[in-house]
Structure formats: structure tokens, C-alpha cells
């Protein structure tokens, strides 16, 4: 496999043309790699993720998956190209049942849906128990599991997770990260936004710190965790680009 | 020659009356983003109020109050304001398309009542003998005098509204239209401002209705059909909403288009199909306006695209 799975170069993106939030960001994620995207509030982490899916305006730069350019594609086409996306909030359909949520996730591959749903139930037995419950009836942790299972329905090559452990009890969060591990082990590239630096780096192979729309620090997770520049970056102090 | 001048005078008078109503709509929509889908209802209230107060007594319906014209016009505006207040209070906190529904509903209800409450409105026969100013003048001079009156009223309404929108209140109103959340954060009472704009904007509509009644001397439910709401909206959109001069210009332009299409239909369509002529006119105007919305939404004089309320995504102001 030549080249990284996901390659972002010089991305400028935001909600309005005159107000970019992501400001010339470049990063890459390899297959089977878990990359944690960290940074203070408002740094543009979620926006960057949405840009990859085409859910915010891309003003400049390029986003490629396996060499294919995604910029300019409508969201459903970008996703169909092999992306699984789990948003931070409202990441399950509350008026659809668990099973319908999964069916929606597998919408692009109707012939494989039945098999994939069975697979999802094997992997996440709690979903099987709740298959006829509405998404709105699940607890926070259960919804998170459903959201991830939904994103996996098309066997994506790249998984985008926006704060997967947010609002979860530590035990549930651990389960989520363990699932992420298993997913990456199967060869999927994972880009994960995490507010909780320690947990994020603990679950990742690599970390990237985004400040004011641009990566300012990056490196292997363990090393980054011990890097004194990490705290400074979060506090908004200048950091030499890594 | 006289005929042509008479026609132009008539044209300008009706256009001026429409322009007054359009100015009111501009305050409601152009300056405070509220969709009044029942403009004709407010005009009807003004017209019937004026008619009820100035028409002679008839055994079929109430009358015989013989109010002086100016007082009756003031009362017409007051009646319109009261109804607007009632509707506004109920809908001010709701999603904006509910305001459209409610105003649409009230215009429809008013239309039904006008047709059915014979004791008050004369039903389908309408009310005749309404007091006209300059009633003693021969027709040609009456036309000129009334045009002068209508033009003066239009000018007065225009100047008053311009004053209002340039005042601190008017500027705050525009801030609310642009970004409601920010305005609320700055402590502006958003709901009350919108309600006030809605109510004040309704007054010229009632006045226009009263002027119309005074001009023709007769009103009936068939003078106030739903298509009139569409015509006034078209005037505002063509002229450019958010701009009072544009509203007036739009009124004249659209009324000219409407009149010309009417003449065109009379000339081109064979006489046996003339009854359908009105339908052809409506289709032409409908198509024209939808095309305008698609290709030049800011109208003739409206503001630039990105700040035009027409193209603002309602969701971005949080009012859904």
C-alpha cells in the first residue's frame, strides 16, 4: 500500500467563506493506525472531521483517501467511498429502532446489510438485546456503541470518531477504546478527536495537536504524552512546529 | 388624449395605494423578517372599517354613522392595528412559518366573514355609497385630486417609515434581523421588537384598504382576494426588500406589468376566451415572480445577496 490512507494537505475549511476555522492543516492517517486529534476548545478538530465528510465548506486544500480526492464531493458520495463517521452529538437516529439505525448505516450496500447486522450483533451483543428499541431509549454509552456499529456497517477503510468517550463513565469509555483497538487491528485507519488528552493518547498510536485550526505538534502517542510542549500548546503558548 | 391621461392617473392612484401597503409589508418582512401571508386581510379590515363608518344606513347592514373621512381612516388603521396585535401576540414566539400560516388563516377567515356576515358587511353584495373625498368634482378632476391625495399619503407614510428605520429602534431592528441570537445577547427584547414592527407594519395596509374604499366608493369580498397578497409580495420582492424606495418602485413596476399583461391579454386572446384572460395573466405573473426569485432574488433595488433576508437561512438565526 503506497501512501497513507487519509492525506490532508493545506486544508482551509469553515462554515462561511470569510471565516475559516481550519487554517491550512495537513495531516495523514495510515491504514490500521489510530491517530488522536487533540487540542483546546474551538481549535477546529470537529470542523476538520466534518470537512473530510463534506459537511462543512472546504475553501482550499486537498483531502484524499487512497489517492482519491474528496473535496467537492457531496457528503453521501464521500462516505460511500469508504468512510465511517461518528459525530459528536446526535449520532444515532432517536426515532428509528436499533436495527433500523444499523440498516441506515448499511444503506449503501443493501445486499450485505443482513449479514453485516448479524456481524454487528455478534460484536456488540448489547445491541442485539435492544434491537427493537428506539435509539432514543438507549443510554449514553449504548448510543455510542450503536453509533460506532452503525458507522462500521459498510466496512469503511477510514473511521472518523468525534469524541467517542464524551459523557461516558470510565468503564464504558474503556470499552469504547478497546473496540477502537480491535477495529484498527482489522486494518481500518482511525482518526479520533479526543478532549481527554490522557485517554486519547492512551488509545492511540499517534497524536496530533491542533491549535487555531492548524497542527502545531505531532508524534507517537507515548512520546507526545510526555512532551512538555504539549501543555504549552494547550495553553496557547507558542510551540515550535514538530 | 384625455382618455390616456385618465388611465394613467387611475394607474398611478392604484399603484400608490398598493405602494402604501407594500411599505407596511417592508417593515414586517424587509426590516424584521416576518412573513405576512395575509396582507389582503389587513387591507380588507381597513376597507370594511372605513366603509362601515362612512356608508349610509341600509336596511341590509349597519351604516349611517357618517363619520368624517379622516376620522374613519384613522379608525380603519386602529382596527387593523388591533387585529395585528392579536395575531402577533399569539404567534410571536413561534417558528416563522407558523406566522405565515396564521396570517394566511386570518386573511381567509376575514374573507369568509366578509362574505357571510351580511348584517355587517353586506355579504357578497358589499357596501356601497362609501364617502369619497372630492365627491363633487367631475370624474377627470376627481381622478387628479384623488391621485394628489394618494401621492401625499404615500409620501407621508414613506417619510415616517424612513424616519423610523433610521432611528435607534430601527437600527436595532435590523440587527435583530441579521443575527437574532447576537441581538438577544445584547439585551434587545427580540420578541417585543418583532411584535411592534409587525403591528406598525399592518397600519399602512389598513390605510391602503381604506383609501381604496374611498377611491372606489364600494367594497365587496371580491375586491380582496388572496391574489392581492401575492401581488403585494411581488411588489416588495421585485423592488427589493429592506429598502423603502425599492418597495415603492416595485409597486409601480409590478402594477405596470400586471396592467400591461391585462391589456396584452385583451388584445391577443380571442374574445371567446376572454374569461380565461385573467387566468393567463395570473400564470404569467406567477411564472415571472418565481423566475425572479430564482435568478435575481434581491430585486431591483434590494441589498446584496449575502445580507438579503430572502436568502438568509432561517435556521441560522435559531428561530426554527
Amino acid at each position, binding site marked *: 500500500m503506497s501512501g497513507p490512507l487519509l492525506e490532508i494537505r493545506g486544508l482551509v475549511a469553515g462554515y462561511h467563506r470569510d471565516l475559516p476555522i481550519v487554517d491550512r492543516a495537513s495531516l495523514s492517517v495510515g491504514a490500521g493506525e489510530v491517530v488522536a486529534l487533540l487540542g483546546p476548545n474551538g481549535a477546529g478538530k470537529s470542523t476538520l472531521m466534518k470537512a473530510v465528510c463534506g*459537511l462543512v465548506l472546504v475553501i482550499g486544500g486537498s483531502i484524499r483517501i487512497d489517492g482519491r480526492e474528496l473535496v467537492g464531493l457531496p457528503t453521501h458520495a464521500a462516505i460511500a467511498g469508504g468512510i465511517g463517521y461518528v459525530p459528536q452529538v446526535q449520532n444515532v437516529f432517536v426515532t428509528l429502532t436499533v436495527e433500523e439505525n444499523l440498516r441506515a448505516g448499511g444503506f449503501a450496500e443493501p445486499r450485505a446489510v443482513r449479514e453485516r447486522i448479524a456481524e454487528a450483533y455478534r460484536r456488540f451483543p448489547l445491541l442485539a438485546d435492544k434491537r427493537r428499541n428506539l435509539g432514543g431509549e438507549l443510554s449514553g454509552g449504548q448510543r455510542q456503541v450503536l453509533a460506532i456499529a452503525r458507522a462500521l456497517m459498510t466496512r469503511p477503510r477510514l473511521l472518523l470518531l468525534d469524541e467517542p468517550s464524551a459523557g461516558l463513565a470510565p468503564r464504558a469509555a474503556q470499552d469504547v477504546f478497546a473496540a477502537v483497538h480491535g477495529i484498527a487491528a482489522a486494518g481500518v485507519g482511525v482518526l479520533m478527536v479526543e478532549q481527554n488528552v490522557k485517554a486519547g493518547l492512551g488509545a492511540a498510536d499517534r497524536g496530533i495537536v491542533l491549535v487555531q485550526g492548524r497542527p502545531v505538534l505531532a508524534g507517537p502517542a507515548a512520546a507526545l504524552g510526555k512532551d512538555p510542549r504539549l501543555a504549552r500548546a494547550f495553553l496557547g503558548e507558542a510551540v515550535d512546529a514538530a | 388624449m384625455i382618455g390616456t391621461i385618465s388611465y394613467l392617473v387611475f394607474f398611478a392612484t392604484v399603484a400608490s395605494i398598493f405602494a402604501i401597503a407594500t411599505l407596511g409589508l417592508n417593515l414586517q418582512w424587509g426590516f424584521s423578517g416576518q412573513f405576512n401571508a395575509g396582507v389582503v386581510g389587513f387591507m380588507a379590515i381597513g376597507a370594511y372599517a372605513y366603509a362601515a363608518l362612512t356608508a349610509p344606513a341600509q336596511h341590509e347592514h349597519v351604516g349611517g354613522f357618517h363619520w368624517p373621512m379622516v376620522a374613519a381612516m384613522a379608525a380603519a388603521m386602529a382596527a387593523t392595528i388591533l387585529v395585528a396585535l392579536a395575531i402577533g401576540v399569539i404567534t410571536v414566539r413561534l417558528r416563522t412559518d407558523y406566522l405565515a400560516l396564521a396570517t394566511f388563516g386570518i386573511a381567509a377567515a376575514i374573507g369568509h366573514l366578509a362574505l357571510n356576515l351580511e348584517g355587517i358587511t353586506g355579504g357578497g353584495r358589499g357596501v356601497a355609497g362609501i364617502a369619497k373625498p372630492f365627491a363633487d368634482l367631475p370624474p377627470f378632476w376627481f381622478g387628479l385630486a384623488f391621485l394628489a391625495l394618494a401621492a401625499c399619503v404615500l409620501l407621508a407614510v414613506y417619510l415616517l417609515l424612513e424616519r423610523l428605520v433610521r432611528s435607534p429602534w430601527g437600527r436595532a431592528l435590523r440587527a435583530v434581523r441579521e443575527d437574532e441570537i447576537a441581538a438577544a445577547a445584547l439585551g434587545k427584547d427580540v420578541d417585543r421588537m418583532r411584535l411592534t414592527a409587525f403591528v406598525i407594519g399592518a397600519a399602512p395596509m389598513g390605510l391602503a384598504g381604506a383609501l381604496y374604499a374611498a377611491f372606489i366608493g364600494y367594497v365587496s369580498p371580491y375586491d380582496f382576494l388572496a391574489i392581492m397578497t401575492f401581488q403585494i*409580495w411581488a411588489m416588495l420582492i421585485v423592488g427589493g426588500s429592506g429598502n423603502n424606495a425599492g418597495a415603492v418602485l416595485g409597486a409601480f413596476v409590478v402594477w405596470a406589468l400586471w396592467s400591461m399583461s391585462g391589456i396584452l391579454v385583451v388584445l391577443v386572446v380571442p374574445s371567446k376566451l376572454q374569461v380565461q384572460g385573467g387566468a393567463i395573466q395570473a400564470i404569467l405573473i406567477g411564472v415571472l415572480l418565481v423566475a425572479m426569485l430564482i435568478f435575481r432574488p434581491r430585486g431591483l433595488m434590494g441589498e446584496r445577496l449575502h445580507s438579503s433576508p430572502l436568502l438568509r437561512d432561517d435556521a441560522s438565526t435559531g428561530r426554527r
Partner: protein
Amino acid sequence: MIPQLVVDGLLTGAVIALGAIGITLTLAILRFANFGYAEFLTVGGYAALSAVLAYGGTGAPLGPFSFGGFIAVALAVGLLATAVVALVSDTVVFRPLRRRGAGPLVLIFASFGLALVLRHIVLLVYGTQPEYYSREIQIAVLLPGGVRVMPDQILVLGVTVVALMMLWWLLRRTRVGLAMRAVAENTALAQACAIDPEAAIRWTWIVSGALGALAGTLFGLTVQLRPEMGANLLLPLFTAAVLGGVGSIPGAVIGGLLVGVAENLSVLVLPTSYKATVPFLIMLACFLLRPKGLFGK
């Protein structure tokens, strides 16, 4: 007296319910109040009429009904024609506006314009006189409680129930229905599932157009066809949708039935000249007391 009024109200209400579903779907998925929706009833009813006129009638009356078997073909023609008109309206008017970022209020104004055009085209082609599918006489059926109903009216209820069942099947058991429900709830999340919102939108126009055509044909069958029929029904349709709660189909059905029954029962307390204002009063009451309607989120 009362049972008759209630039954008459349910029959009117069935037609309103079908149309209200179309409106609530449009509100939920297209996210704007389509003031031109009621013209789909007019177009549908008149398209079916064209088929009937072309055929020279509806065929020999079947059983106690006023119409013959051809009415089914006419109905199919009406459904198809209206679905096409609905799709064309979206392609020509609403999609370009969506692309330019038009807010719901612009779309509402455009829908007014569309309503104007559609209504007057029907007026142009058919004139102002009321029309009927068939002038055959029917004999009323006597029900317990001294209630009289026409066989056609019973059929309207039956057809409505069947239509509702088909709609339920579409929304709950098909991929198309799933896409529509997903887009109605959360468009961005649906997109993240690789669902194309434009496809869901096209289906919404087709389904709501077909429902409108059905409602219009049933109305034409049991009352009459007039070019203003849509315009006159617009307010009751919207009231039913709002009363039931935007986006709720069961709500639209119940809202429709309630509006029909209330309108009919109102003659007991209000003079008949106020009857047509009842839907508006219900709407105002709804806004005052419970803006999100009976089943709204």
C-alpha cells in the same frame, strides 16, 4: 343529529387527513410550509377527470356506487400525473432555490407562486363550473343511529384506510421509507450513512403528490371538482398537520379527522356562516395552547 354530523365529519376528515400527511411530510423532510400543496389535490382530481372524460364516463356503475370500474384507471392516471407535476415543480422551482441557499420563507413565497400558476392552468383548461366524475344517483345506506351515508362515502373511508396501510408499509418496510425517515430526523446523519438527501426529497414529492391526488379525487367523487377546491382546502390541511404535530403521520391523520368532525359539529354552536372559519380557530387555539401539536416532537 349529532351522530350524522360526526359521520359526515369523519368522511370529510378522511380526505383532509390524506392531504395533511402530504403536508406534514413536506414540512418534515423539505422543511418548509408548501402553500402550493393543496393544488396537488386540484391537479390530481382534474387529471382523473380528464381520463374519465376521454373514456366517456366511468363505465357502468358498480353495485351501489356511483361510478364504474374505470374510476380506478382514472385514479391511477391522476396519481401519476400529479407525481410528475410534483417532481417537475421540485426540479424547476425548489431545487434551484435550495441550491442557492434559500431559506424556508423564500420557498414559501415560491410555493405561493406555484399555487397560483397551477390553479390558473386548471382554470384555463376546465373553466369555472363544477365538475363531477359521474352523475349517477346513489341510494343512501341507513346505519344505526339514523345516520345516512352514501356508498361512495363508505368507499372513501375504505380507500383511505388502504392508503394509510400502504404508506405505513412504504415507510416502515422499504429502503426508500427508511431514507425518508432518516432524512426527516437528521439530514447530516443520514448523509453520514451515504443516504442521498436529494433522492429522499424526490420520493417525498412523489409520495406527497400521490396522496394529494388521491385526496383530490376522493373529494371530487363525494363532493365536486372545482378549480378553487385546493385553495379552499389549504387551511384545513395545514390546521390538521399543525394540530397533529409536524412530522407525525398518525398526528396528521388524527388531526384531519378532528378538523373534519369539528367543522361539522360547529353548526351546533356557531351560525353556519362561521363554519369555514373553524379550521382557523382550531389553528389559533393550537398555537396558543400547544404549538407543537398533539404528537409533535
